[in-house]
Each structure stands twice: as C-alpha cells, then as structure tokens.
C-alpha cells in the first residue's frame, strides 16, 4: 500500500464489501442480472464497466468546473455513450460471438445507474485521481457480485465454468453425474439471478448486522 494513502485505498476497498454498489447502494442492477447465466459474459461485462466507469469518472471530474449544472445530465450521458460505443466496437471486433450474447446489454451500460450515480455523487465534487480510484472501486464491487452470480448460475445450471465442464459429462454420466446428480435448469432462467442476488444480500447482511434495514 505504499502507492496509495490509506484514504485512497479505502476508496477502492469500501465498495467491494460494505458499500457495495449492487447489494447496498442498489445501483446498476439492470444490466447486472440478465447476462450472468454464463461466467464468461459476466467477466466481460465487469471489465467493460470497470473501463467505462474508471475513464468516465476521470473525464467528468476534469470537466466538473465547466459543465453548467442545468445540462449536466445530458453531458454525462454523452460522455458515457461515447465510452460505451468504444467498448461495443472493440467487442464486435475482437469477440464477436460474445458481443452477440451480450447484445443490447452493452448499450445498456449507458443507463447503468452505477455510472450516473458515481458521476453525480463523486466525480462532480472530487479531483481526477480520487475519482479514478472511486470509479475503479465501485466497478470492481459491481464486478465481484456479477462474477459470484455468474459462477453459481453456470456451475449449478450447466455444470460448466467458462464453458469447460467441471462436474463431468451429463450425457455419458461421468464424474458427479454418475451419482445421479442433475443440472438445475432453474438456474439458467432469468428469475434465478434475482434469487441468487437476494441470497447474497442475505448472507452479507447476516455477517454484518450494521447493514440490516429498518422494517
């Protein structure tokens, strides 16, 4: 931690757990859930958001004194949209199959509430370096949840990780399947993502009682 002061390190570490954008701040759920049926898509989505939020936060922070506050939402949307177009074009060029799977959800990073939320709450009031750390931290917090959800959904739903079978072959009945284990098709359908996130929230709040909401 010689590189970062303690305060700066907290900017990155806080959103990973106790101030997680998905489970605590309730931001960015929209695009988070639909693409978590496979681990690979989750990882790519996480990386895209880390890029967009890190760079976007710096840009907005640099512009914060020249943006008239009345039209700031439109300016922010334009900045994000530009960055997302870059991500989309890169994906289409180097990972065409994956960009088909992610489909419109890459575009929906624009309206991902994490991005607008961090612009409004942090980048408009802080310098570029701090904003960069905050952006990376929050995007990592988002990515962690995405990867946890993707891990469980792909493992339990298809018995694979990154498309590689890890539990044996379901047709030839090898590995775990020899004992009568079956893939849980329920994990593949969209609503399962919500239930998995609900359970993550449950676990997290049971471990940290301070996060429990008042009824």
């Amino acid at each position, binding site marked *: 931690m010689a590189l970062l002061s303690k305060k700066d390190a907290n900017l990155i570490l806080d959103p990973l757990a106790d101030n997680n954008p998905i489970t605590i701040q309730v931001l960015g759920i*929209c695009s988070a859930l639909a693409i978590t049926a496979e681990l690979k898509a989750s990882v790519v989505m996480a990386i895209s958001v880390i890029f967009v939020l890190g760079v976007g936060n710096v840009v907005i922070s640099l512009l914060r004194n020249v943006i008239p506050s009345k039209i700031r939402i439109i300016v922010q949307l334009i900045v994000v949209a530009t960055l997302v*177009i870059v991500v989309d074009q890169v994906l289409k060029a180097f990972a065409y199959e994956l960009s088909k799977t992610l489909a*419109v959800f890459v575009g929906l990073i*624009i309206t991902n509430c994490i991005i607008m939320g961090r612009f409004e709450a942090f980048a408009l009031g802080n310098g570029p370096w701090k904003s960069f750390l905050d952006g990376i931290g929050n995007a990592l917090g988002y990515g962690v949840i995405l990867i946890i959800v993707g891990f469980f959904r792909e493992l339990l739903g298809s018995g694979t990780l990154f498309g590689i079978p890890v539990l044996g072959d379901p047709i030839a009945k090898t590995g775990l399947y020899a004992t009568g284990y079956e893939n849980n098709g329920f994990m593949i359908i*969209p609503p399962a993502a919500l239930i998995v996130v609900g359970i993550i929230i449950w676990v997290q709040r049971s471990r940290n009682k301070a996060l429990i909401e008042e009824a």
Partner: protein
Amino acid sequence: MLEHLELFFKSIFIDNMVFAVFLGMCSYLAVSKKVSTAVGLGAAVIFVLAVTVPLNWLLDQYLLRDGALVWLGPEYADYNLSFLSFILFIATIATMVQLVEIVVEKFSPALYNSLGIFLPLIAVNCAILGGSLFMQAREIPSLGLAFNYGVSSGIGWFLAILAIAAIREKIRYSNVPAPLRGLGITFIITGLMGIGFQSFGGMLTGDNEPPEEADNTTVESSGEKEIKKEIEKDEKAVSYNDVVNN
C-alpha cells in the same frame, strides 16, 4: 391487426421488461415502497416509452441502419451509421424527457406535481433506452408496431412495479428475517414473480393464429392465481400474528 395484438400481449407478459430482461430494475426497486408513487412513475414510463420508441424507430430507419441514407440519393447507399445508435438514442431520450418536462410543467401543473420528480429519473431508466435498443435489435417493421411496442412494454413495466409495490406494502406486516428485510426479500419476491411470468411463455406458441379465448383464459387464471397467492400471504401473516399473541 393480429400482429399488433400478438406484439401487445407478447411485450406485456412474455418479454416483460422487468421479469424477462431486468430493465429498469433500479427505479423498480427504489420507487416501489408505496403504490401511489409506483403508479406515478409507471405512468411516466409508459408515456416516455410511447414517445421515444417511435421517434428512435424513425431515426433508425432513415438515418442509422445499413443503407438507410439511400433517400438522400443513390451515392449514400453504402453508409452504415449504426455504431452511432447508442449516442443518438440516448440524446433523443434525454431531450424528449426534458421537453416533456417543460411542456407538462407549462400546461398541466397538477400532472407536473405528481410526475415532476420522476421525469428526470426516467432519462436514466434503462427500460427506456432498452425499449429503443430492443426495438432496433428485433427489427420491428413499421412505425405503428414501434408505437405499439413502446406502449405495451411500458404497460408491462407499469404492471410489474404496481404488483411489487402492493406486495411490499403488505409484507411490512410480515415477519421477514432481519437480514432479508427490505432489499433482499424484494429481490426474492421479484424472482418468484418472474418464474410466474415465465409460464406466459407458452401463451403465443403453437399455431400462427392463437385463439383469442385461450389468451383471455390464461390471463384470467393467472390473475386469479396471483390474487390467491396474496390471500395466502395475508393468511400467513395473520396466523403468525395469532401465534405471537398466544
């Protein structure tokens, strides 16, 4: 006519914005604590979707898609501006939301007061941009269908937020485990409702001409099911209270 009807039911129930593709989840979770505010936001979403989807359809058709500029002359036929669609769609949406806000404030202060706070929120509601992007991805063929798609996916979103707001008002009287209170239980209920909505998937498959009566009965019976579920929930809450009191 039939294609309109099919798209209408399909967008409300099968491809429901919230339960099938998780669009607009942020405001869905944040603004669903009370039924009255949920209705306000839902109405605003229907309205904005109905305006922006046809508008973006025109943009897509005459400006963005491969060869769309051909109306300018044959030498423009090779242009494909579709990489600009994100930025143009979001610009349209942000402008329209601002415009709607100004117009509503000027002509109907009462409506403005009830919708006012939600309108700026809507610019960053993924359901709105998602509506336009899905419209583009599904290659909806005509302006009329695009309008239909906007309205019906708006109605689907409205139904979803209304249902969850009603359930959350009820669930306040239930004894939810403390760590699940609030956000956690809302996620899980939404998941369960999503599973219910999955069953609509069988509604329009089969022959090319789905019989009308069959559609209606599906809708009704599931409506009854939801009501039954709610009744059951109430009973459970009551019985729990009884146990505590005894």
